[in-house]
């Protein structure tokens, strides 16, 4: 009886992993590696990768710059409506990306809520590179902010208090104590957000369109090349797999590092011998 149960578990795992790995392997196996590399040298591929890199990096700076203080606020303060705000931060996680793009268009588009005001300043967001950045920020930020809230919330509050009584301003307390101690968690969230941003498709294509060299990111280029040059699409896809896998690996390493680094002088250790 027990043995057959084990067999069921192992079979399920075998099916699951085969299903996960087969498409990934196919990306690399359909054409020889040399051809794959050559395809990446094409004008379209290079352009798309450049757009992706640029927009993802800018979006990431925005996510870290605004997301970190927001996460610190939500992670270390107790106030009415806090859990509502946390839920709001996480909303893009469950929102279909296409809906996110639609919402961005309805808000910032030429005939959107803020379209007139933006136009008055000569700003036209939709179908620009800035729109790509906004789409990525909207969709990818929860991956960072969510993890950062957890990282800040799990800080020992006595350490923050100690810094203050030692003469540190709130800014210095944040920089010298909170940030370094939360760093492993922040880095893990940051990697996930970057990976998610790099793969952004739905919100981007609706809000920013797919103009080569401007808004056509790597995922959009895959879609565009699908009918024209399947090998080029494969090559870009393979590269994205490599980047994503590297980031995921980095996250795993960072989280295990965070686990070991958190062996701070805990009261339980000290009092267990008394």
């Amino acid at each position, binding site marked *: 009886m027990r043995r057959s149960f084990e067999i069921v578990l192992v079979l399920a795992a075998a099916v699951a992993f085969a299903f996960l790995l087969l498409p990934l392997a196919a990306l690399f196996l359909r054409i020889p590696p040399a051809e794959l590399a050559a395809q990446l040298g094409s004008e379209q591929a290079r352009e798309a990768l450049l757009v992706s890199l640029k927009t993802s990096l800018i979006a990431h700076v925005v996510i870290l710059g605004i997301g970190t203080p927001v996460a610190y606020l939500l992670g270390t303060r107790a106030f009415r409506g806090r859990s509502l705000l946390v839920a709001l931060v996480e909303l893009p996680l469950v929102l279909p990306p296409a809906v996110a793009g639609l919402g961005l268009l309805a808000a910032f588009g030429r005939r959107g809520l803020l379209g007139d005001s933006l136009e008055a300043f000569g700003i036209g967001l939709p179908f620009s590179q800035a729109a790509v950045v906004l789409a990525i920020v909207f969709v990818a930020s929860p991956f960072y902010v969510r993890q950062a809230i957890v990282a800040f919330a799990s800080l020992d509050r006595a350490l923050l208090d*100690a810094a203050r009584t030692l003469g540190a301003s709130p800014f210095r307390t944040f920089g010298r104590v909170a940030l370094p101690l939360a760093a492993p968690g922040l880095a893990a969230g940051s990697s996930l957000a970057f990976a998610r941003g790099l793969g952004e498709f739905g919100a981007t294509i609706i809000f920013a369109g797919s103009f080569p060299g401007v808004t056509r990111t790597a995922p959009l280029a895959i879609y565009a090349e699908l009918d024209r040059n399947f090998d080029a699409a494969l090559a870009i896809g393979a590269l994205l797999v490599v980047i994503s896998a590297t980031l995921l690996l980095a996250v795993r390493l960072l989280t295990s590092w965070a686990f070991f680094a958190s*062996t*701070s*002088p805990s*009261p339980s250790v000290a009092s267990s011998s008394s």
Partner: protein
Amino acid sequence: MGFLRLDFSLALRSFELELELEVGAETLALAGPSGAGKSTALRAVAGLVEPDRGRIETGGETWFDSEHGIALPPERRSVGLVFQDYALFPHLTVQRNVAFGAGGGVQALLDQLGIAELAGLRPAELSGGERQRVALARALAREPDILLLDEPLAALDAQTRARVRSELRGHLRKAGLPTIVVTHDFADAAALADRIGVLVNGKLVQMGTAVELIAAPATPFVAELAGSNLLSGTAALRPDGLTEVVLPGGARVVSADRGEGEVGIIVYPWEIAVAREQPVDSMQNHIRGEIASLVPVGNRVRVKVGELTAEITAASAERLGLQLGESVVVSFKATGAHLTPSA
């Protein structure tokens, strides 16, 4: 010379913390049960919580004054706070922990507290006693006007505790700052402080030296905290002028004090004698029971028999060859049974 004067109130969950104190260049202990508001009092002085009203001032500065809307943030109060469990920064070395708030003189402090050779280690690599010294060095490094210690010995095991206690006493004397130590342990308070304030449910119930608190406890709680035995029962006057108190278990205690009805009885441990057989002597009270614990305290031994704790010299305990679980008789005089209004 510096001083700290505070007079404030602060609403806590189930009671109001009301504290009025003046601390000179001395060590004052706030002792009391956990949840009495002791730590909150320290946090209020340090600026980590804000009282509802009142004043907190030191030598030349007002740190808090609700009437004039003054409430300095913690970093602008010249205060050294040693946290319970020490709150050392786990990501910094001993050296950098101590240097965190320091103007200078870090090396001198490391030397003075005997932690110079630990300078390169992280807190996780230190023993409890070492952490305590690092925490004290870190608090002193800021050259504070006021020193606050929150349960500085609670995180230590019993063996380390006795040694660190006398060490800490020396360091506090040397620092010569107005110091408040919060502790739930009367022995710690007595060892470290010049005066002890007993805080119960946010109110100071008594303030005095350790001897004063033990000799004349204002309330049964102070008596118990100070280490005296506290029994309770129903008292009735006897024709001979003595009072007989019947304990809940049926045992009778005779007291020279006069009392009737529900009363508390305070018996100091050093007024209780321990014998193997019921002695024929002048004492009025003899209670037989088994030895529940034998705890050495310096050159004395605390012997717990039933509800009573006797304190006898280690030499006597050895001569009698007392063993756990052994049946003995504890005795005390009617004049050693001090009646007090029941709790």
